[in-house]
């Protein structure tokens, strides 16, 4: 075989191999999603969204409390994560200090890699121990801390993209710096920041580990925010490891709802980004 022939063959072979790798990577998505639709679709009905969990042995029932609980937890997490994330990102993008931003950026990236269950322990010692009970608040704090690095880094990147001329225009009109930042820079970067927030929400919506010993889960409606609260992901976990077929079916339905929520939010974030890119281009 001529050397050139061999090289062309190797080239083709690697093409096929790397393509196969890409296909194999996507395969689980098809398998997981297929089973979710197949198993979860059949147990999904209106009652699932409107009713409470039924005791073992009684068929039917739903996860209304868990769906609402997840939404409340996301809201609480936003109260914790958004101010710190957005203001911190603003700081990273605008600070002229040579060292401190580097440290903050590095810490944010490290925090992004901290296992969520460890953040759960943090929220446990910070909120659960002093209050002496599991609570929605503790769950919100845990999820909020997980949001911070994601929001912080996307905000930073987006704020950097705001054209300098816009800032200069505001300053030329005599606006104070803070007004330029709040009314011009943040408003211009709005769409991008919202995207970052949605990515963060997609991530925390399915988080289970940090909620195990903070929000704890609840089979009933929560009464106050300092009480344990149900969450969809927690309920799916509890039902999945239970020995009852009825509950397994509910777990599949819950997982289908959960993944649909996460995918919709991710998709919205994706569309917002592509719209943003078109506009800035």
């Amino acid at each position, binding site marked *: 075989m001529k050397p050139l022939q061999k090289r*062309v063959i*190797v080239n083709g072979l*690697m*093409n096929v191999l*790397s393509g196969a*790798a*890409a296909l194999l*990577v996507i395969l689980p*998505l098809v398998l*997981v999603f297929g*089973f979710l639709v197949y198993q979860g679709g059949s147990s999904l009905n209106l009652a699932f969204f409107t009713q409470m969990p039924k005791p073992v042995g009684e068929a039917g029932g739903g996860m209304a409390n868990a769906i609402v609980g997840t939404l409340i937890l996301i809201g609480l997490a936003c109260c914790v994560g958004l101010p*710190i994330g957005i*203001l*911190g990102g603003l*700081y990273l993008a*605008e*600070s*002229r200090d*040579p060292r401190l931003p*580097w440290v*903050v950026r590095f810490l*944010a*990236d*490290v925090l*992004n*890699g*901290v*296992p*969520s*269950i*460890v*953040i759960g*322990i*943090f929220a*446990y010692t*910070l909120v659960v121990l002093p209050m002496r009970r599991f609570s929605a608040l503790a769950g919100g704090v845990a999820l909020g801390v997980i949001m911070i690095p994601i929001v912080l*880094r*996307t905000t930073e990147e987006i704020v*950097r993209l705001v054209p300098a001329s816009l*800032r200069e225009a505001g300053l030329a009109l005599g606006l*104070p*710096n*803070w007004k*330029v930042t709040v009314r011009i820079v943040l408003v211009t970067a709005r769409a991008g920041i919202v995207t970052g927030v949605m990515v963060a929400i*997609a991530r925390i*919506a*399915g988080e*289970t*580990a940090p909620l195990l*010993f903070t929000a*704890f889960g609840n089979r009933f409606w929560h009464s106050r925010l300092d009480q344990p609260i149900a969450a969809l*992901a927690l309920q799916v*976990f509890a039902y*999945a490891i239970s020995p009852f077929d009825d509950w397994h079916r509910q777990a*599949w339905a819950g*997982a289908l709802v*959960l*993944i649909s929520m996460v*995918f919709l939010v*991710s998709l919205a974030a994706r569309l917002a980004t592509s719209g943003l890119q078109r506009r800035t281009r």
Partner: protein
Amino acid sequence: MIGVDANRGGSAHGAPLPRAFFLTPRGSLWGDRIFQGIVYAAVGLFALVMTGIVFALVVESMPAIRRFGLSFVTGQEWDPVKEAFGALPFIYGTLLSSLVGMAIAVPLGIGAAIYLAELAPFWARAPIGFLIELLAAVPSVVYGLWGIFVLAPFLRNWVEPLLGGTLGFLPLFQGPPYGVGMLAAGLILSIMTVPFIATVSREVLLAVPNTQREAALALGATRWETTWIAVLRYGRSGLVGAVLLGLGRALGETMAVTMVIGNRPEIAVSLFAPGYTMASVLANEFTEATSDVYLSALVYVGLLLLAVTVMVNSAARLLVWTVGGSVKGIRE
């Protein structure tokens, strides 16, 4: 400090910015001062959270550290009733399951990244990239559910008997096929980490300057040779960083692993045997910890887990950043 540099413009990262920033109070504008204060408060709060995480874990695990010291890491017995706590089975389980996961995920992830960044036809790149990102967004508990009811039975009925029959002479593939166990945990971990490895590697490869490729192509290299000689070698440290980021994920992954690993604190060589990981023991036993020492020992496990993942992630960040001064927008 900030005021001094503020008028220079330009920074280590990104394009030069205009002169005025909210962080430079002009004259006696109180609004600027107040806003500056708010921003600094947010950054301070963030720093407080970071130190708080470390502080909380150290304080809570102090009783266990005092009582067991470093022998905690080598102790093999985990018996809450006797208050004997050794974390070795969990450390072993975390390392082995992550190792199995990485053995599968690394070649697949980097292969997929090469395909997406270098070899795939242009129309296919965005959709495949998007699907891989979706895969990264699937919640852990959903993978766990799928693992319990689809993957584990499949392994028990098909894969493990087959592996046991053909490769059974290796200690890795001996023992009864349970389905749940190290192999299932490793497979789930590979599925969960591969999207991270693939997307970060793709970003690294895309950050390699085009002049590298053009030079190799101009010398008559094929596309693959270009990739191998000019792109992969250039992005080497970034790729190692991507793998380490994936490893960090695998080490700390909790729910899916907890659901398929079998949760038995024993050290077994066989991949078919059930095991336990540091993260799953926290998930399973934290709310059940009845005594202070028990809880403290669990937090100690959490502290070890934190230390390992922080080290792996810091190394990963530094490596990715070395390729990337130019690589922006690498996010997990």
